């Protein structure tokens, strides 16, 4: 039986190209041929097949994204086995792999066409305002673990690179409209065409209006969305040697949000329902040059601007990235090298619960990378060694070396191993800022009540203090992988063990002498004065780089296509995180926990024009203060004719109203219950 590579999902989406071997049927598909790079190596891109890559990689192809009925990038990412994708509410997401997903720190590098979306203030990605038209995504490459180190900094837990289609492939019109029980309107329009015979373009717009969740934890849900976006991409091909692309996107969002903060002298968290208004803009231009059939170079300049405005936090973030990369092959050696520069401008208006020590308002980062791949035995044994050397304003120079080995003893079997070091540079919250958190009661300090209400009920002002003694977190990772493909099935297994040192932890700093006047008043029976004296005290939780973690686990994905019309995938992932902390300290993100995920996915072509797509996720974890849950996504797609298509989707089916993420001490936002969601979509191509 012949297996179509379109459906052998994880391993073969980028077809392995074997020189001097006849094409298989699926290689000769026009779509496949158009997806192949003519170069054996390419700057900023992975030209190897996923099968040959020495890291735990999963490629989410455009067919899957389309047939899944997803309406946003985070929703599409739910289809990647081993990726932790949890919703806080209808807008906000916590996404990571091989670690603890968090709204504000997931140690994950996210890029759109190589442009980093990392925000150094929080180490966050604003998933809720990330607008990439799903119908114009070529593929999403997900590297679990440290395999994507060369791509950028802070990629300790993984890399997500969203690769959009060349505009030459999106000429013509496209429109879709979705509605459902949660989404009132989600509509997209795109038009693309040629620019003389030297280029092509597309412009697109998007509007979204959706409802709040049905049930909140402590407040009535307010997680509505009003969003509109506009974007464009243009590609130019003046010659076979030179090509250029330009793209930009502006997204305005008004997102309802429930959150809590300390805003008055009670030092107590107060819950709010508020609207967050954000404008996210990005532009990127890239010039690629094919120096010869064996050498390429690339220059990319990217700009990102994000403004956020809500009652108590107003933030402005802007970044400029300049990346240059070059690579070539000489006999058995492939060499990649590059230089990068990043300028971040960050400003936060004075906030009642967030202030900065050092008024750092900009950060620069510059460095380079080099990687050599040597083919010891043709088509059998490859050794890859490389490093990324970066300088940043907070911790100076950081070195991230890695060594990888790929061994293909016989056809269709591949084993790989890797040892790598990575760092996570501190965020400004950790380095520079003081965050006022829910006040501490006397009982929490001395362990007993005084039975004097005015003292027992008082909350002492409490701060989470970043400071400039915080170091970069240091990760050493050992990985081992095995892959096998057969005609109708494929297996991908990877295991890892990561030791981290200098992990940020929280240390209680009470400065006991500040309480002596209050103690004296108390002992003299002057309780009112004792309570009054407490208002001059404060408790600090200092961030200290003293933690150690051991993270270990594995990912296994089995793909099987028993008949042409049915492709299936079964995955299981296990992650265990173990903190080792000195006495008197607590983890800052996550805690000792285990995460298990069982994953099943199927795509069935019922008749020529009807397909059923289904994905089942069993999430079993003690890392999110939430019950385990099982959710089913089911989508029926009907291609009515060449022009029209319709889809009916049910998401989070059978999970009931459930909480996916409840680590509220790590985030000031208040999650809601996640509900089933039904959508109906109509699509037209013209």
């Amino acid at each position: 039986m012949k297996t179509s590579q379109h459906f052998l999902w994880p391993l073969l989406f980028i077809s392995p190209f074997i020189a001097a071997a006849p094409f298989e049927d699926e290689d000769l598909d026009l779509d496949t041929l158009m997806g192949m790079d003519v170069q054996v190596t390419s700057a900023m891109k992975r030209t190897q097949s996923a099968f040959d890559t020495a890291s735990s990689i999963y490629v989410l192809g455009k067919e899957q994204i389309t047939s899944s009925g997803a309406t946003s990038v985070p929703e599409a990412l739910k289809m990647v086995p081993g990726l932790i994708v949890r919703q806080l509410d209808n807008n906000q997401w916590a996404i990571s792999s091989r670690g603890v997903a968090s709204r504000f720190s997931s140690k994950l590098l996210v890029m759109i066409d190589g442009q980093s979306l990392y925000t150094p203030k929080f180490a966050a990605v604003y998933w809720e305002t990330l607008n990439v038209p799903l119908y114009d995504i070529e593929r999403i490459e997900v590297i679990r673990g440290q395999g994507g180190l060369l791509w950028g900094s802070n990629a300790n837990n993984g890399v997500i690179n969203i690769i959009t289609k060349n505009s030459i492939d999106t000429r013509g019109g496209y429109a879709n409209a979705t509605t459902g029980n949660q989404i009132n309107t989600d509509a997209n329009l795109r038009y693309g065409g040629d620019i003389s015979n030297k280029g092509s373009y597309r412009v697109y717009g998007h509007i979204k209006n959706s409802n709040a969740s049905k049930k909140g934890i402590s407040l009535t849900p307010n997680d509505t969305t009003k969003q509109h976006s506009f974007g464009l991409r243009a590609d130019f091909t003046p010659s076979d040697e030179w090509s250029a692309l330009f793209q930009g996107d502006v997204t305005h969002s008004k997102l309802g949000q429930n959150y809590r903060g300390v805003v008055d002298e009670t030092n107590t968290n107060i819950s709010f329902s508020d609207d967050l208004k954000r404008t996210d803009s990005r532009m990127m231009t890239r010039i690629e040059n094919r120096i010869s059939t064996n050498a390429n170079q690339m220059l990319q300049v990217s700009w990102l601007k994000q403004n956020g405005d809500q009652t108590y936090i107003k933030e402005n973030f802007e970044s400029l990235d300049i990346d240059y990369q070059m690579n070539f092959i000489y006999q058995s050696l492939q060499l990649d090298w590059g230089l990068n520069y990043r300028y971040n401008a960050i400003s936060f208006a004075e906030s009642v619960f967030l202030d900065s020590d050092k008024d750092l308002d900009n950060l620069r980062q510059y460095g380079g990378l080099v990687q050599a791949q040597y083919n010891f035995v043709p088509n059998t044994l490859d050794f890859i060694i490389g490093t990324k050397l970066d300088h940043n304003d907070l911790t100076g120079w950081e070195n991230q070396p890695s060594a990888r080995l790929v061994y293909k003893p016989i056809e269709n079997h591949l084993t790989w191993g890797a040892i790598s070091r990575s760092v996570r540079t501190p965020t400004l919250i950790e380095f520079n800022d003081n965050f006022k958190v829910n006040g501490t009661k006397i009982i929490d300090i001395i362990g007993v009540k005084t039975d004097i209400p005015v003292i027992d009920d008082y909350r002492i002002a409490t701060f989470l203090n970043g400071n400039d003694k915080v170091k970069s977190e240091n990760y050493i990772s050992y990985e081992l992988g095995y892959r096998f493909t057969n005609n109708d099935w494929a297996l991908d297994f990877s295991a890892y063990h990561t030791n981290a040192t200098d992990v940020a932890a929280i240390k209680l700093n009470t400065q006991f002498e500040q309480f002596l006047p209050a103690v004296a008043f108390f002992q003299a029976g002057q309780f009112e004065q004792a309570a009054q004296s407490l208002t001059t005290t404060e408790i600090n939780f200092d961030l200290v780089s003293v933690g150690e973690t051991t993270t270990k686990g594995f990912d296994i994905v089995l793909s099987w296509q028993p008949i042409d019309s049915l492709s299936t995938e079964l995955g299981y992932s296990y992650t265990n995180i173990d903190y080792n902390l000195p006495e008197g300290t607590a983890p800052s993100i996550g805690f000792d926990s285990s995460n298990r995920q069982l994953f099943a996915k199927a795509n069935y072509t019922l008749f020529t024009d009807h397909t059923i797509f289904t994905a089942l996720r069993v999430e079993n974890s003690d890392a999110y203060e939430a019950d385990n849950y099982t959710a089913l996504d089911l989508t029926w797609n009907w291609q009515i004719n060449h022009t029209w298509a319709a889809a009916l989707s049910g998401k989070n089916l059978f999970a009931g109203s459930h909480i996916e993420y409840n680590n509220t001490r790590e985030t000031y936002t208040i999650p809601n219950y996640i509900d089933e969601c039904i959508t109906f979509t109509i699509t037209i191509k013209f």
Partner: protein
Amino acid sequence: MLKFKGLLHSLTITFVLLFSTNSSAMEKEYMLKAGFLYNFARFGQWPVQLNENEYFTICSPDKSFIYAANVALKNRKIKHSPLQSLHVVLNEVSLEPCNILFITSDTITDWQKSQLTSYHNIMIVGESAEFIKSGGHIRFFLSSGKIRFEIDPLKLKDAGITMSSKVLRLARVVNR
């Protein structure tokens, strides 16, 4: 002086590394282009139908392309006819069995000199910058390292060949 020699040596090495042509890289590009020609053959309509014993023939004056095409398209058929790739010289007799003629950038000068710019029943495909203006029907170009193509359907029609809308949709259509 020694330093200068060292610098010169390293510059030469870099130059050699960057501009040396690696045969497997070239072969990959030609294998992919052969794959496209196979699709043009599948989705094109020629005025004369071949019977099962007749070969569908892809020709090129470039030996390295024919080598790559023979590897890539081994044992393939076009509508029941076996497919063959044939090295040809650019004259009318040699081109007689051809259904598709591929002119590589290394052989474009020979093609222009031959003045065989229009030939009935042969789809003429190239990869050089002004190939369509030089009389070609289809031209490959690269966009971000991937192969795309432009088609002049009128010239193709003049040669008696029509191309399916499936292929035309993917092409940049010139001289509409």
